[in-house]
């Protein structure tokens, strides 16, 4: 760093530059005047704004940023780890509320007309005309059928 010695010695000469004589006393007096003036003439809005900006200027430092991030993380964790039943109930309630408002209500007559039980005669549609099979008559030994339709029909006589 010796190459910079000359430069440093030159720059250090600037410490001989001084404020004018009596500057400090005048400065303190004008600071008092300014403070009184701010107190008396400053608008309420201006004073409020000044206080708010000063407060947040000190607030927005890394310590508060970390605290805020930690609080957010805790809130998120609590929300994600709450009991599952609570969540499903809430979802079901909200779904019911949403769908019930969209689907038109049916009266009882419509419900009766469309009930499946009124049209159901047992079995599937293509089984309704098949005669019941008498197992004791048709079974002639061998492996018992598995119960499919083809198995249940009597074998054609040779």
């Amino acid at each position, binding site marked *: *760093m010796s*190459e*910079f010695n*000359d*430069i*440093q*010695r*030159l*720059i*250090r*000469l*600037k*410490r*001989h*530059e*001084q*404020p*004018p004589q009596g*500057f*400090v006393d005048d*400065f*303190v007096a*004008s*600071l008092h005047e*300014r*403070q009184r003036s*701010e107190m008396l003439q400053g608008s309420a809005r201006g004073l409020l704004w*000044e*206080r708010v900006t*000063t407060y947040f200027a*000190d607030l927005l430092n890394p310590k508060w940023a970390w605290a805020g991030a930690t609080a957010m993380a805790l809130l998120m964790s609590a929300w994600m780890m709450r009991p599952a039943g609570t969540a499903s109930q809430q979802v079901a309630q909200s779904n019911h509320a949403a769908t019930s408002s969209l689907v038109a209500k049916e009266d009882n007559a419509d419900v009766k007309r469309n009930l499946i039980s009124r049209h159901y005669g047992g079995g599937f549609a293509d089984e309704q005309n098949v005669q019941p099979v008498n197992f004791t008559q048709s079974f002639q030994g061998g492996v018992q059928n598995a119960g499919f339709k083809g198995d249940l029909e009597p074998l054609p006589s040779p």
Partner: protein
Amino acid sequence: MSDRPNNPDSDKDLVERSQNGDTRAFDDLVRKYTPKLYGMVYNMTSNREDTADLLQDVFAKAYRSLKRFQGKSTFYTWIYSISVNMTLNHLKKRGRYTKLSLDDVDSGIQNDPDFIDITSGGNPLREVNIHELQKRLNEAMMKLSEDHRTVVTLYDVQGLQHAEISKILGVSEGTVRSRLFYAHRQLQNFLEEFRK
């Protein structure tokens, strides 16, 4: 030569009294730090009027914020940080070009060994006028970037240590040393004719 306060404990007492509403204690702090901060702000702005206005803003803000000063750093570091930040904000708003105004140079410069050496026989600029030298130094300082000017002011002019500057600026000591190195190299070019 360092401008650091000799007794930081006295600051603590003055700060506590100020926080308890003793306005005279705050006045004592203002009187104590105005010359030091004036030097710092003036060397960054090179303008006397701007310096006085900025110092008013600095102490007004310090007074409003004093209740929340918790003493984690020294008052000295705290008030310097406020001054540096407000000065840098001011310089950003003001822009690059401004009228430079020179401060008075005290008579002590005539006895300063560095000044005697610069104006002695071996130097081609031995006939240099003090005010001309002052003007050239200020112009060279203003050619530096704001960050570089800040570290040169705090280290070379104000005599603070790297660790103190690092706390005031909120950067690492390595960054302070690096900025000083590049600032000195630039100043070397700007002030070539003053070097032997």
